[in-house]
């Protein structure tokens, strides 16, 4: 399977939080060949099911979110757009950024900046504030108000590209690359006899923690939920507590959000299959869908498996394909052989 093809296709699509449905359709189509049933629910979650054939089977839920961080039009000034954030963005990535304004059809916008020729050195040493930034769409005030209503979402428009060593840069690797990993898991387990039904969820709403994933977990009534997401990788300006590195395998975000028996099983399977893993202590909120799925209904065993990502929430996120493959292999191993605790509760 060409996992890269799925990553490119999904990540370059436009679907900020609250506007995921077009991406959900793409994702549903992509995973359909490997699933027994595929649907899109009320909140735009993709739900793909691989049945094991056992009546009243236990259920494993694997969730990767399809929404992306972005911006939203909040007003118009002299034909330029005022913007608010959807999800968490560092405003420093915005000046002079090319964007897609999601009108129908989508159109280009550029975050306008003053030319350096009229700025003083001290002007350039302080970041511009997001509320002071405006998006140039090449329209007059009248045209802008008419053609681009307040509430129109806006996203980055990076086309993916390769770095050395099978590393890849794109927007929205967080977290559509994880959904591509789920497609890979579905392929790996396609012809396997499974002990439980496996639900692949492409969740909505994660970036604002109002997630579609808990709704899907509620509907599914799963025994074990695993959020597949992206984790912080170290870069030169990182502080020492961020040490995970690209190419060294999936991250296990161990802590209260990570049910012990799942952690032990994943660790043992990784060892058996010689899949390197990087443990990341996560003492509280995990910042993933698992945080919310964990407490759905009477509670669900939960876990967080991530692959390391550089420059998260920027237009140029960076991953290593090897990590995506290793993550998929670890999850496939768990889906096939989860151990008795998972199937006992």
């Amino acid at each position: 399977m060409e996992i890269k093809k799925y990553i490119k296709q999904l990540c370059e699509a436009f679907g900020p939080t609250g506007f995921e449905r077009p991406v959900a359709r793409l994702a549903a189509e992509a995973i359909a060949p490997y699933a027994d049933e595929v649907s899109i629910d009320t909140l735009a979650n993709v739900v793909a099911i691989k049945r094991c054939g056992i009546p009243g089977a236990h259920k494993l839920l694997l969730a990767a979110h399809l929404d992306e961080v972005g911006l939203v039009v909040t007003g118009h000034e002299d034909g330029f757009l005022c913007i608010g954030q959807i999800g968490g963005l560092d405003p420093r990535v915005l000046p002079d950024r090319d964007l897609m304004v999601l009108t129908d059809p989508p159109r280009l916008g550029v975050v306008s900046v003053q030319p350096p020729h009229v700025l003083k050195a001290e002007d350039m040493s302080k970041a511009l504030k997001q509320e002071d930034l405006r998006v140039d769409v090449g329209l007059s005030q009248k045209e802008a108000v008419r053609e681009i209503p307040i509430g129109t979402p806006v996203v980055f428009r990076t086309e993916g590209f390769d770095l050395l060593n099978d590393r890849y840069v794109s927007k929205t690797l967080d977290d559509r690359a994880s959904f591509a990993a789920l497609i890979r898991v579905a392929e790996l387990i396609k012809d396997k006899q499974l002990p439980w039904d496996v639900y692949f969820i492409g969740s909505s709403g994660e970036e604002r923690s109002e997630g579609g994933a808990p709704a899907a977990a509620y509907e599914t009534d799963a025994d074990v939920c695993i959020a597949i997401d992206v984790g912080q990788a170290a870069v030169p300006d990182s502080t020492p507590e961020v040490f995970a590195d690209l190419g060294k395998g999936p991250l296990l975000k161990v802590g209260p959000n990570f049910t012990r028996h799942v952690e032990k099983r994943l660790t043992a399977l990784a060892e058996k299959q010689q899949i390197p893993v990087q443990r990341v202590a996560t003492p509280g909120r995990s910042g993933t869908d698992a945080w919310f799925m964990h407490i759905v209904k009477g509670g669900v065993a939960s876990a967080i498996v991530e692959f390391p990502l550089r420059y998260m929430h920027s237009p140029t996120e960076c991953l290593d394909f090897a990590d995506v493959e290793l993550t998929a292999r670890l999850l496939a191993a768990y889906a096939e052989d989860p151990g008795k605790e998972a199937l006992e509760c």
Partner: protein
Amino acid sequence: MLRTLKTLCLLNGISGNEDEVREYIKARALKHTDDVRTDRMGNLIVVKHASERCTACGADGNADPKQSAAPSRSNKLPKLMIAAHMDEVGFMVTRVTEKGYLGFAPVGGIDPRVVFNRRVFVGEKKLNGVTGLKAVHQTPAELRTEIPKWPSMYIDIGAKDKAEAESLVSIGDSIAFHSDFVRFGKGDGFIKAKAIDDRYGCAVMLKLIEKDLPMDVTFVFTVQEEVGTRGATAAAYSVAPDIALILEGTTSADLAGVDGHKKVTRLGDGPVLGFMDAGSIYDRKLFEGLRDLATENKLPWQIKGRIAGGTDAAAVQRSRSGVRVASISAPVRSIHCPNSVAKISDLKQGLKLAELFIDAVASGRI
């Protein structure tokens, strides 16, 4: 012209490393004249001789014999040079870190606030790279107002370590922004691209070279404008013009909330005629000539609302015993950024005005 401009903007030519741009322009120019040379600094000097078909033919003294039959007045025609710079702002590699990242420094004037999370091309092999900034999650809100200093910025090429990076990259390698060329806005009347400053001027000159001209014109595609108009200094000496017209992209700050003259120039208000900037006070008669030509031909024109920026005119004007200089510039938003924006109507009107200027010089009006 837009197709030419697109091709030119997508080429990379950081100051001091303009080869790619020059080779493209040279190949195009050679289809229309044999008189093409590259000087020792890398300036490309293209002489387009007066067309025989032109009634107002002129020559600048040592023209070919066919033109010696031109009207006697032609011998008095001033030597006209038109210039635009090939180079663009960018970066260069200054070091390789233990972990295989690249340190870099700006070449030309770049606002450090526009360099984060950009795709860049490194060196002649055009290795993909991305300028880094740790993720928002790793940055407390109060630190998101800090702009890192140039020496602490870095480029990620995906190298595993220093040895791998050093096998592919050398200190001093050029780094160019990646940016596509897109039309957008009302009636697709705007473009966004990198290096509109000054591939616009280069595109206009290519269009002029392709036309039948009424007099000999020396077109100079200069190097190193962005680091101090250095190419133009040398080229003006060797060309020794009487009159020089500089074609440029100039600063526009006509953004939301910017008042009056602080906009400097406005997109859509037509070509910008140089009367004064930080580098030059332009020849008054030439400025007035351009202004009158525009007005008579119903072309909009504007002047800068702030005395800022400069052009190759500063170097040319002071060459030898002095040169009369004029400039026509396109107003450009986010100039020196990967996503500069210009309005197509301004670009086309600038080309038209440059043509009118040549005619006016050839006819002795200017």
